């Protein structure tokens, strides 16, 4: 009886939840049901349930596929290099911004530095061609006018790595400062004043007050980054990359797209996707565990 009163009073809450739950079931759990394709000889005519089971054959094929290992290696290498370059960049930038004395200049700098974050990768790809192009790119125009040979920023794989990383820093460094700036603002001002009285230089104040003050933020963001080591966005490597540098630019997400949707090896691609999802899950749970241990704070 009590339950029926509860529902009479609160049915509207469940009515509100109805459509969202249907959404999650269809569009999130639907694909999870489709994961069984990885264990089936899938073809579009027979559909998911009609296709024949093949057990772990697809995974055997994945682990014998050279392209898969290349994509896996590239995913890890590109993420690792990003961690080395794109992780410290916003931290340094945030500290510089925090030390600015004039409020209007700080505001202006922030406004400009955040812009690249809102530009789509397609547009960035267009800009990259104009700036790094071999034939008529901006940088190579300058090099050539100074009498140097043009550099193959987009068509040589090692130069391409540089381009990929540089573009990443350009796009993310400004926006990445926000969380650091917020925790810098949270540091007690009296600490700085006391240090000033004691005659500590600006650099010493940064080293002994600012950095320790935002240690938790740094560690947390670092752990999140490591936790996402195996997952990589699609747009950036797909758009910045090209056929000439595929040996370095093909990552798991672009590999799955190319093999599954362009070459039609649906089963193989689904198996790779499942492998990535499972390893990613282990990484992120590990990261969360580490975060709890180190900073007493769960990242999720």
């Amino acid at each position, binding site marked *: 009886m009590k339950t029926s009163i509860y529902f009479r009073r*609160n049915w*509207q*809450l469940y009515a*509100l*939840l109805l459509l969202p*739950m249907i*959404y*999650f079931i*269809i569009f*999130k759990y*639907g*694909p*999870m*049901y*489709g*994961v069984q*394709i990885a264990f089936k000889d899938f073809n*579009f005519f027979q*559909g*998911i349930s009609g296709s024949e089971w093949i057990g772990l054959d697809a995974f055997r094929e994945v682990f014998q596929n050279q392209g898969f290992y290349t994509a896996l290696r590239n995913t890890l290498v590109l993420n690792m290099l990003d961690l080395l370059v794109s992780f410290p960049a916003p931290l340094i930038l945030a500290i*510089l911004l925090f*030390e600015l*004395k004039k409020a209007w200049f700080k505001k202006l700098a922030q*406004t*400009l*530095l*955040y*812009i*690249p974050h*809102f530009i*789509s990768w*397609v547009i960035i*790809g*267009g800009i990259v*061609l*104009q*700036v790094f*192009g071999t034939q*008529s790119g901006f940088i190579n*125009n*300058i090099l050539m*006018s100074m009498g140097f040979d043009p550099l193959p920023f987009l*068509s040589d794989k090692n130069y391409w790595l540089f381009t990929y990383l540089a573009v990443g820093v*350009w796009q993310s*460094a400004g926006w990445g400062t*926000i969380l650091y700036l*917020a925790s810098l603002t949270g540091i007690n001002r009296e600490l700085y004043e006391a240090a000033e009285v004691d005659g500590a*230089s600006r650099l010493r104040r940064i080293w002994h007050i600012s950095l320790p003050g935002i240690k938790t933020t740094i560690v947390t963001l670092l752990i999140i980054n490591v936790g996402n080591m195996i997952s990589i966005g*699609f*747009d950036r490597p797909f*758009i910045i990359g*090209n*056929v000439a540098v595929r040996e370095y630019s093909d990552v798991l*997400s672009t590999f799955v797209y190319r093999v*599954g*949707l362009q070459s039609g090896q*649906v089963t193989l691609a689904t198996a790779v*996707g499942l492998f990535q*999802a499972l390893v990613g*899950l282990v990484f992120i749970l590990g990261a969360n565990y580490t975060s709890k241990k180190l900073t007493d704070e769960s990242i999720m």
Partner: protein
Amino acid sequence: MSENTANRIFNTVNVILIIITMVLCLAPFIHIIAISLSSNRAIGSGEVSFFPKELSFEAYTKVFADGSMIRSLIYTVWLTVLSTVLSMAMTIAAAYPLAKSNLKGRKWFMLVIVVTMFFSGGIIPEYILIKNLHLLDSTWGLILPGLISPFYMIILITFFRGIPESLEEAAGIDGSSHFGTLMRIILPLSLPVMATLSLFYAVGRWNGFQDALMYITKPELYPLQLKLYQMIQQNQITELMQNEGIGAVQVLPESLKAASVIFSTLPILLVYPWLQRYFISGVMVGAVKG
């Protein structure tokens, strides 16, 4: 060296470093604008850097005259507005009941949703689902799959929880239904956070590319990003072929490419300065975590 001098040197160096960063940040845009306004002869001979050479508006005239770029822009605006409105409606509908800690079955609902944040079927099963639902080559195929972001939903739940319960109880005593409370009390109090989330949904849809690449083949349904990608990509392939010495293929003039890039960037650049604070507050709310 006195304390004051050291301080002044530090400040000067710092300001210079920041100015260099700002220049690096903006230089590519200025270069593209200069290219888009220059003659193709000047671009071809590498004379254009940050100022237009042999000023010409021809590229922009072409972009506007073509019509397909404008049509794509209008379609993308429509797509973004529709998708943002529906996303917000659904996110609110999910967040309001789930913000109530005494909701029966709350744990289970949350579990069903949170699981999707950590595990997904992957893009191939998603593609097959969209195909089976006959949503390929349809606007709905670009709207429905990303309707609710669990992350934004949790941000909203956290915000709703911060609203004093006494406000709601007072409304309940006055005989207000849950719908009424939501519409008359909760939503008006949540305008800033809703502005922020709407912006994130809108930017995500506006810049979204991968789903359009996979699901859309009809040119009249190309969102702006896909349209632009096709233009640039087609060019990159021909450029690579030329590098290899494979024939002289018709290449889009650089100025036209640049003008299209600027054309697609402008809407974001025009809106961004006015809405900047909402974006930033969104990052902060998200960082407080759910």
